[in-house]
């Protein structure tokens, strides 16, 4: 590929160092000189990003590939190729630096996910998600650790040196479902909302568990022995990490919301506040070893309703596009680097260990999901069927987070680092390639419910809204505070909390004028499918508004009310040529209703 040739460029140029001028006394004024050192780092970074983006383009231009193979697989393969090429050239391929990964590559993806998290399905299933995330990950980690230890002891030979704590550490690294991989694969299969949010929510929330377990076991391995008090402290640590992370996120979220009230005169830098506050939340959480991912999610979720009420439409668009762009590039880079690091990293291959890891991973995932669903279904209204459970279990992909955590292990305290690294890479490859590629045909085969493609019609909207109100009322009558009660209370408090009276009038005007905002908001959650914004600019806005006024006038004119009195039924005409325009108008009205739904 000519693209890959771009890669040789820095290597070639790197060998031409700056040419010295002071060879002769009479120096000719240097018309052209080369000084690569000066720009080496930003140049190489830009080149990597450019390569990643061009690959993305190429991937979508070749139709057959994108239908069969998920993007993540192709990217890893490309990474392997590039790594191989670099190795062939004699250079050392760069490894995915954990620092770079955790501080630069991961946050955009998580922020994108958190900011556009569909809150309603998330909150409705939060119990299930938390159960899978916390209990599921704990179970996986311990099961894998203990089983691996047992198997290693039985195996003997070179594996006898692997002790229990190391195994548990390994188990905790490899058992966490990875949000990046899940997003990348699930993105393309358009599965129904419930399953998507279950797997994805689990991958986000298990970060707290992973962080705690990882640090706990690393500390223990370092120390060599563990007491009961330490275990208790570990449990306390888990609560501190997760709740602390969420609190940090909330604090920064409120700060961002508060700041956005005053940005009326400096609209241009509004997006910057969103990004900076979120990133600060992540970094602040990382300072205290709290869960940065949960902080980022909490910040995005808290900040969003207030910020969006205060910022301009253009700023909203900017935020959305920047987040999508960064997260897209990040994801591509992560997968490419994963491929390159595979070629680079020191490997210690051991058939038994690796195959055992793989088998136990799958087994623990299946057992965990089935067992937990059995308990969860007792408390759920909409039960999870066998098919759902299968998809949830099958969708538990591992990814770059596991790799980075394994890479972070220090070699002195953990002698098995290379072994672990190899095993983790194998698991990642297996889940991303095998599970990632086969999940789409399996979804079709099992006829799992897909995402609802079309939006609700106006009538469905009206009646579902009505139903919500009705259910809230009935819950009140019955006297117990159920799900609808709390939702209603939250919505009322949101309304009275932050917006003053004049602001409210202004917002009402803004809501009426920006109909397309609601439409985009719903579709924002699916990445890569940003619809062509046909009515983005103001000119079309006014045109739409004029059309709507005209529409209303004509409809009120032509639809007269059939009187309740039976004596004089007035004749009404239903003009069929209005149907087409009515469809369009009803779509925009539906959006207005949705605006008030959530």
């Amino acid at each position, binding site marked *: 590929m000519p693209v890959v040739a771009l890669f040789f460029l820095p290597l070639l140029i790197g060998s031409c160092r700056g040419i010295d001028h002071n060879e002769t006394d009479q120096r000719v004024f240097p018309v052209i000189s080369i000084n690569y050192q000066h720009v080496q780092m930003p140049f190489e970074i830009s080149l990597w990003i450019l390569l990643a983006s061009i690959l993305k383009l190429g991937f979508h231009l070749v139709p057959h590939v994108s239908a069969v193979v998920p993007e993540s697989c192709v990217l890893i393969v490309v990474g392997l190729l590039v790594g191989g090429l670099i190795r062939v050239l004699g250079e050392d391929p760069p490894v995915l630096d954990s620092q770079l990964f955790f501080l630069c590559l991961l946050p955009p993806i998580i922020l994108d996910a958190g900011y556009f998290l569909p809150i309603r399905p998330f909150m409705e299933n939060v119990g299930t998600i938390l159960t899978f995330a916390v209990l599921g990950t704990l179970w996986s980690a311990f099961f894998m650790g203990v089983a691996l230890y047992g198997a290693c002891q039985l195996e003997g030979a070179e594996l006898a040196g692997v002790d229990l704590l190391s195994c548990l550490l390994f188990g905790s690294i490899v058992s966490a479902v990875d949000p990046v991989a899940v997003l990348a694969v699930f993105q393309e299969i358009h599965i129904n909302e419930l399953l998507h949010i279950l797997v994805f929510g689990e991958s986000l929330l298990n970060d707290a568990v992973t962080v705690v377990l990882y640090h706990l076991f690393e500390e223990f391995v370092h120390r060599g022995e563990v007491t009961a008090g330490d275990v208790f402290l570990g449990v306390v640590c888990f609560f501190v990490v997760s709740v602390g992370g969420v609190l940090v996120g909330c604090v920064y979220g409120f700060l961002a919301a508060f700041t956005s009230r005053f940005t009326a005169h400096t609209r241009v830098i509004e997006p910057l506040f969103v990004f900076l506050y979120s990133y600060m939340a992540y970094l602040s959480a990382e300072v205290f070893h709290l869960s940065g991912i949960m902080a980022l999610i909490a910040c995005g979720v808290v900040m969003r309703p207030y910020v969006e009420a205060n910022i301009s439409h253009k700023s909203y668009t900017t935020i959305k596009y920047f987040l999508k762009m960064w997260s897209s590039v990040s994801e591509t880079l992560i997968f490419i680097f994963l491929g390159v690091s595979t070629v680079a990293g020191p490997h210690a291959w051991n058939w038994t260990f690796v195959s055992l890891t793989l088998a136990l991973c799958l087994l623990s995932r299946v057992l965990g999901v089935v067992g937990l669903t059995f308990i969860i279904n007792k408390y759920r209204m909409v039960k999870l069927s066998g098919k759902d459970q299968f998809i949830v279990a099958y969708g538990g992909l591992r990814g770059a987070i596991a790799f980075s955590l394994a890479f972070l292990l220090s070699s002195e305290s953990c002698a098995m680092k290379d072994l672990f690294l190899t095993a983790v890479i194998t698991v990642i490859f297996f889940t991303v390639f095998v599970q990632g590629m086969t999940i789409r045909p399996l979804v079709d085969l099992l006829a799992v419910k897909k995402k609802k493609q079309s939006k*609700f019609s106006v009538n469905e909207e009206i009646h579902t809204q009505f139903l919500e109100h009705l259910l809230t009322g009935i819950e009140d009558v019955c006297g117990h505070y159920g799900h609808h009660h709390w939702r209603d209370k939250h919505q009322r408090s949101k309304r009275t909390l932050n917006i003053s009276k004049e602001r409210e009038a202004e917002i009402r005007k803004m*809501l009426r004028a920006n109909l397309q905002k609601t439409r985009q908001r719903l579709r924002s959650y699916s990445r890569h499918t940003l619809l062509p914004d046909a009515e983005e600019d103001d000119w079309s806005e006014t045109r739409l508004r004029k059309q709507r006024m005209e529409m209303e006038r004509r*409809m009120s004119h032509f639809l007269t009310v059939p009187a309740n009195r039976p004596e004089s039924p007035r004749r009404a005409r*239903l003009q069929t040529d209005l*149907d087409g325009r009515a469809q369009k108008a009803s779509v925009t*009205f539906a959006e207005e209703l949705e605006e008030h739904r959530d």
Partner: protein
Amino acid sequence: MGSFQSLPDDHQYRTLSQKTGFSLEQIGILHNRFKQLSQNEDTLRNFQKDATGSVQEIGFEEFLTVMSYFRAPAHQITEEQREEIRRAKLRFLFNMHDTDNDGTITLEEYRHVVEELLSRSGALGRETAKGIADAAMLEVASITVGPMAPDEFYEGITFEQFLKILKGVEIETRMHIRFLNMDTTVLCK
């Protein structure tokens, strides 16, 4: 949950339980709530001033019947039963909208629904609400009746048409609340 004292009208509860499908504990709890709401009288008085076509007072049996519409369907039921439950719930909703009980939801009644819904959210004006109701009505007409001749008259939404337009919404699972087996009346005002 403590001891469970014997109910006053045990036999009555049993018949109610058979009729509505609630368990005996749930009926007991709802009865407590009913007594709380009606201030220990036998019936709930209707306070709406301009209520036409509605009863003035509601007894416990009627209260329970209404509540039974909001029970979740059982997990293992046949397609027929599911369809039946769906019809019953949609019938309930339909009757809520059809205030004069003539079997159709007229434009005026529909407008009333939309206005009530949106005015409580507090954002849109009367014209927009009317426009939405009109558009919705048009949509129902075009879905259920198809293109109509210029001199045809669209009366209103009948129950069958109502079923048709709400085909995509899973009413049987959405229209439910959790009826607890625990008495929460002491926790609420």
